[in-house]
């Protein structure tokens, strides 16, 4: 059949059946790709997620490295020198302004490191307090998520794997915790623990962390694991019915092996994704608890307590509220976007 130059008809003559070797070749030459590699490839293509990742990475690195290099510390009040009266010129400095002794040094030709964000009402360098606050917020978020992960994973896996009565009882507990108003519970728990925990941890390594940080972790551990455990339980229930699990049992595999080799690896993506998404929500909770005065103990700053302190001089020094607020938003937003990117790359089914 003659074919017109513009015809979209496929020219059958240019096709021929693949020989057996051709087919074999196709199977062999396709590069081996694992689930993980595929996911990374998809993640790389997601610009928003990558940018968010770098923002989080940048803030994290900065909050680790900067306090080591910065000449001021988050707790030293610059106007207070032992044996001398308090120098009030250091309090409430505007950005890039200096206190009285520093001005004298500059006149004498010495270099003085600037106060990039000025100082707070007690004469502490505000920049380093923000950096330190970000460090505290990030680490609280990270460790709280780990706690949530460990508890949620254990209970969810037990519930899903054993099923029956165990599942029934555990899931009723989850339902009860779910139905509690969590804001109220967090505030109640945090204020009760603040009082009762203080004396208990005196002279232990925990004292350095402060009772409030510990009570934060307890609050997260006690309340936030429920949604994680529900998620994991659902996954395990589903995976348990897969034929490869039956196959493992037919080969004589027992509980521990089935859980670690078959069930967990297959819900790994769900676990990682929901942990990643847990971090910003923990940071957020930490911030508002600190804002309410239930967070980290003074003089340790967190982004929430910085914002709270800034309320006093809000009209004169609005930037002191704006700066920590922006940092919180940036961290929470980037972590959320990155978590979403992870989810889309590794488990598109999970999208709701």
């Amino acid at each position: 059949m003659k074919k017109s130059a513009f015809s979209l008809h496929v020219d059958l003559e240019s096709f021929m059946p693949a020989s057996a070797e051709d087919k074999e070749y196709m199977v062999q030459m396709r590069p081996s790709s694992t689930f993980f590699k595929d996911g990374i490839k998809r993640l790389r293509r997601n610009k928003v997620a990558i940018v968010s990742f770098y923002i989080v990475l940048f803030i994290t690195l900065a909050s680790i490295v900067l306090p080591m290099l910065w000449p001021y510390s988050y707790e030293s009040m610059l106007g207070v020198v032992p044996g001398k009266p308090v120098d009030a010129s250091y309090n409430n400095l505007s950005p890039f302004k200096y206190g009285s002794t520093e001005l004298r040094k500059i006149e004498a030709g010495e270099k003085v490191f600037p106060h990039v964000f000025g100082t707070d009402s007690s004469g502490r360098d505000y920049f380093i307090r923000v950096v330190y606050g970000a460090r505290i917020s990030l680490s609280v978020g990270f460790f709280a998520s780990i706690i949530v992960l460990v508890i949620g994973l254990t209970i969810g896996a037990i519930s899903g794997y054993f099923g029956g009565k165990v599942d029934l009882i555990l899931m009723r507990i989850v339902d009860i915790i779910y139905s509690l108003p969590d804001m109220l519970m967090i505030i109640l728990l945090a204020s009760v623990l603040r009082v009762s925990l203080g004396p208990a941890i005196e002279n232990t390594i925990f004292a350095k962390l402060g009772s409030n940080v510990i009570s934060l972790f307890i609050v997260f551990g006690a309340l936030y694991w429920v949604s994680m455990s529900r998620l994991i339980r659902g996954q395990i229930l589903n995976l348990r019915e897969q034929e490869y699990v039956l196959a493992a049992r037919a080969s004589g595999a027992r509980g521990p092996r089935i859980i670690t080799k078959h069930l967990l690896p297959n819900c790994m993506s769900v676990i990682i994704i929901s942990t990643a998404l847990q971090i910003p929500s923990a940071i957020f909770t930490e911030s508002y608890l600190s804002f309410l005065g239930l967070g980290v103990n003074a003089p340790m700053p967190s982004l929430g307590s910085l914002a709270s302190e800034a309320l006093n001089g809000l009209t004169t020094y609005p930037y002191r509220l704006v700066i920590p607020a922006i940092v919180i938003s940036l961290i929470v937003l980037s972590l959320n976007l990155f978590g979403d990117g992870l989810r889309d790359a590794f488990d598109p089914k999970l999208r709701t």
Partner: protein
Amino acid sequence: MTDTAKNLVEVKNLKKYFSINTGFFKSKQLKAVDDVSFSIKKGETLGLVGESGCGKTTVGRTLMQLYKPTAGSIVYDGKQIKTPSDISEFRKKAAIVFQDPYSSLNPRMTVSDIIGEPLDIHKAYENKQERRERILSLMQKVGLNSEHASRYAHEFSGGQRQRIGIARALAIRPEFVVCDEPVSALDVSIQAQVINMFDELQNDMDLTYLFIAHDILVVRHISDRIAVMYLGKLVEVADADEIYEHPLHPYTRSLMSSVPYPDPKIARENKRIVLSGDIPSPLNAPSGCPFRTRCPHAAEICAQSMPSLSEAATGHAVACHRLKEIS
């Protein structure tokens, strides 16, 4: 096959009921397998056929101790399997190949880890080197390219995946293998290859099979004897050729009459029996003979009692009240 060969597997009055929730706090018994007895001699292949949903998979899995039997006993090599230690002993000698080549392979494991898992569980090797060699020789045995050992299952075609599943089943050098419709998910062009492979492996490794299929044609060549199942019960058991040439039970006859004959002359002479109605749900099975709702020969007695599986000729057992009247 000699008649003197002893029974490797004996299943006696096996029942497996599932409880199905039919509403709040209400549940009903689904009799997936109801009072099934059969035996398999060493080196023999018993084909188990029946429509989808009649309980074949449940028989295979209960036999493999993947489901706890509701009642009945399973005797392997003269010893009843009861305690957990009996079960773990049994699992060193018996294996199963699943129907679905996709969901039966863990997507997060490489082929060599999938095949090696039974070896790992039973600590069947001295060192890594030996493990690797055994895995590679298994892959070779089932016709897989050993270069693919470190690949993941999703990179293979259905037929190749089923071969991986077969290699896994053979890893522990079993005596007995339950093959649960191992070819029904495969392309017709590949089915014959895989069935022939089962046949060769049986000769090579001295295997005994329970070979499940929904199509009697699939099992005809590989089976020594065939058992026909309907709604959780066995209705006929006989030698493969015997059942093919002289089916006695009305259900088996209808199955045989729907088998296409290559010769149109025979096909025309062979009147087709078309069954009316659908297979009833096992949740409310008919009283008496399970087949009576569709049986062209059903009579009053059929509703009253379940016909027992009894020998109509030597080695040919049938469960039908009206066998004499029909033939």
